Each structure stands twice: as structure tokens, then as C-alpha cells.
């Protein structure tokens, strides 16, 4: 039986309008899209107000008086949207860039570079023993990582007799990356299928009462 819940009606109508995109640009889709934009902005403002209260609560109670500095810097950071007064946001932006850069640098060196490089070396153990599938898997991990990394070297171009083997390694690297794209895209279909299922169930199940 069709739902009598106005919220379900609203969400079903928005879903149908959104699906109308498959027929191309139209007014119903524009309505859905505009509602989406408004809800995103509206939510960020409401969350922002609550977050402001939470963040500066220690300043309000007097526990952390030094928070007056980030309060001023935060207010100044809003001026970034006016070209004429954007300079007022310079120090606030500089603080966020500086701290953000430092934080990301330490994570990148530790995890993305060193931990991953160590993992490649450590996988040698898996090549030497284990089930044939695991041994092959570990060998592929090591060879494909090295080859794909070499593929991303752009300015060191070997010449002479070594040129050919290096170019073969780059070809292996290229196909490793293509394999990555193929496997990743195949796996991604689960997500899109799931969202479509959820959206269609909202219309067919929750709204129309089937299923």
C-alpha cells in the first residue's frame, strides 16, 4: 500500500526527479539538484554554528583564554571570499597551510613511502614460502610495484644496451596499472549497484509499498 508518510513522499519525489536525469537535463532534475545544493549548504551552516559553540566553549568558560587568537584568525579567514579583502585572511590561511603541510608530510613519509617500501621488501618472505597462490601473489606484488613505480619515472631515460630491458619493465608497469584500473572498476560496480538499489527501494518499497 502506498505510504502516507509525508517524508517518504518527499524523498520519493526527489528520487524520481533525480532519476529523470537519465532523460537529460530537465526542470524536475534542476529542482532536485537545487534542493541538494541548498541542503548541503544549510547543513554546513547549522553544523558550523554548533561546532563554533563546542570549539570555543573553553574560551567562554575561561579555561583556555588563549583561544581568542584562533577566534580572531577564524573570523578573518572568512574574508577569503571577497577579493578586495582577501588579504585579511593571509595569516589564517598560512596557519592552516603550515600545520596541514607538516601533518601531511609526516604521515606521507611514514606510511605512504617508508611503510609501503618496507612492505614490498617484507613480501619476499611470502615468495619463498606459503601456498603456490600466495607465493605467486607475493611475487606479483613485488614485481608489479617495482615496474609500476618505474613507469612513473619520467626524466631518467636509460640509453644504450640497458634501454630495452628498462623499457620492458615500464611496459609491465603500464599493464600493472591497466590491471589496477580494470579490477578497481569491476569492484566499484558494487557501490553504484547498492546506491541504485537503495534509491529504487525507497520508491518501490517504502513509497509504493511493494516488496
Amino acid at each position: 500500500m502506498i505510504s502516507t508518510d509525508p517524508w517518504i513522499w518527499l524523498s520519493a519525489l526527489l528520487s524520481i526527479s533525480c532519476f529523470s536525469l537519465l532523460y537529460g537535463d530537465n526542470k524536475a532534475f534542476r529542482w532536485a539538484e537545487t534542493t541538494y545544493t541548498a541542503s548541503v549548504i544549510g547543513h554546513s551552516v547549522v553544523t558550523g554554528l554548533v561546532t563554533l559553540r563546542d570549539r570555543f566553549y573553553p574560551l567562554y568558560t575561561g579555561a583556555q583564554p588563549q583561544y581568542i587568537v584562533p577566534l580572531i584568525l577564524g573570523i578573518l579567514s572568512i574574508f577569503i571570499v571577497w577579493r578586495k579583502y582577501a588579504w585579511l585572511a593571509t595569516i589564517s590561511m598560512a596557519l592552516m597551510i603550515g600545520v596541514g603541510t607538516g601533518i601531511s608530510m609526516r604521515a606521507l613519509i611514514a606510511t605512504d613511502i617508508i611503510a609501503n617500501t618496507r612492505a614490498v621488501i617484507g613480501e619476499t618472505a611470502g615468495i619463498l614460502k606459503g601456498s603456490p597462490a600466495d607465493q605467486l601473489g607475493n611475487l606479483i606484488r613485488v614485481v608489479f610495484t617495482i615496474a609500476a613505480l618505474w613507469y612513473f619515472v619520467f626524466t631518467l631515460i636509460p640509453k644504450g644496451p640497458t634501454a630495452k630491458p628498462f623499457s620492458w619493465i615500464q611496459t609491465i608497469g603500464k599493464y600493472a596499472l591497466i590491471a589496477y584500473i580494470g579490477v578497481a572498476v569491476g569492484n566499484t560496480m558494487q557501490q553504484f549497484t547498492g546506491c541504485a538499489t537503495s534509491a529504487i527501494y525507497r520508491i518501490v518499497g517504502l513509497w509504493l509499498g511493494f516488496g
Partner: protein
Amino acid sequence: MAKIPELKSQYIWLVALILFLIPAVNPLGAPFAMSDVTVKIYDLMQSLPEKSIVVMGGASVFAFDIESSPGMIACLKQMAARHLRLVTFPLGTEAAQYHKFCIDAARVDQKYGGPWKYGVDYVLLPYTPGGSAALISFLKSVEATVTLDINGVPINQLPLMRDFHSYKDIAVWMCPHWGFIDIIRYATGECGVISVSFAQSAAYATFSPYMMAYPGKVYMTNGYVGGAQYERLVGIKGLGHKVVDSYSLISVLIPALIILGNITMIVRMKEEEVEAKE
């Protein structure tokens, strides 16, 4: 000679839509197999001592994270049954809403007849800005990072938070979010906390190198199928089971279309060769 026509996109979409409608109207109850990694995560949660503190948190995009919800909701049920405790720490503006959604859907609170009492067994913290900066600060000192819970109550008034001060008190970090990499980088990489994700299929590819870099410390399931598997382990049928039905049909359609596309191409090439000869 008339050439084999290419299928119009609209016809393909119509077939796909019908395939989605079939299980929506009449659930198929498609069977699926269990995978080792899902069982491993289930066992890990079962092995935690009672009252252990689990954190659910990270940066989130709700609509994408819906893929992680079947596994997360099932896991929350398991945690409540095992008398584990939960603290949520949202690092995205949507994550707080997502955490509330998962806890409500799991029906673990006493208001739904569940065993959990707010403030004692679980605490919902509000959104904290700053991304990885907030995460680092939280791991180091919870009190310095968050002062109030989502209801505006100072956290030192909540019994659960009196036992939770830093990363040292975290048994497992659950991240049902797109932002799992930061959790691995900082919670696991810097502090050695075990992290688990009901990873989204689109993100699995991105997360996998990080998982391999920390063997035995990082675990993740794969997409809706992983979520459905966890639902089965806990004994519920949720969104994961629904998606498995649709996916069963779509997984036939796509390879069939790829084959059809290639047959069309080969036949058209042959026709063109014949035309050229004529």
C-alpha cells in the same frame, strides 16, 4: 547491406531498471558465500574483553558510506551483545548524522529495547573540524580535543568518558568511512591501534596498499558483499542482503553487454570488409 545497429543507451538503461525492480518488488534471497576476512573481523570483535572501548569515526560522505552501513550496523549489534563500549568521533560534517543513523538502525539503545545506555555504554561526540589535525589531537588527548558531547553536555560528566583519555584506551578503531586512510596513517601508523573498515568497493583499491603495509593491524571487508556476510554472521537481514539480490542480476547483465558489444563490433567489421571487397 544494413549494418547491425548499436544498442541505444536508453534501451540498456531500461533493461537495467527492470533488473533492479525485480528484487525490489520480490526479494530473491540470493545465496552468497562467506569470506575469511569477514569472519576474521567478527572473531576479532568477539575476542575483545567486555567493556573494551571501540571508536567509530573518521571523515565521511554519508551517501558513499551507506555501503559500509550493513556491516557497521551488524557490528554494532554484536558489540552491544558483547557489552563492548562505543565512542563516536566524526571528522566530517555528515559523519555525526551517519553515526546516529547507524546506532538508530541497529536498535541498540535502551529506548529501542537494546542493552546500551547513553553516556555509560556509548557516547556520541560532535563533528570536530580539522581532519587529520583533529585526529592526531584526539589520539593524544581526548579531553583537549573535545569538550562537549552532541547534547552539549561536558564530556567529563559522562561515565564512559572517565575511562577514555587517549589512544591507549582504544581497543579497535572502526572506520565505516571513505576517510579510512587517515585512520591507518595516524591511529595505526603512529599509535599502533588496530583499525577495521567495512570498506566501500570503490575505496577498496585505494585502501589495499595501506592494509598490506600494516599486516595484522588493519582489516577490511569488501563492499556490500562484505556487509551482507557480516549481517549473516550476526543473524540479521538488512541492506546488504537487498543489494546482493540486485547485484546478482547486474553481474550477469554487464558481462553479457560486454560480450554483445564485442560481437557487434566483430560483425560490423566483417560487414565493412565485405562492403570494401564489393
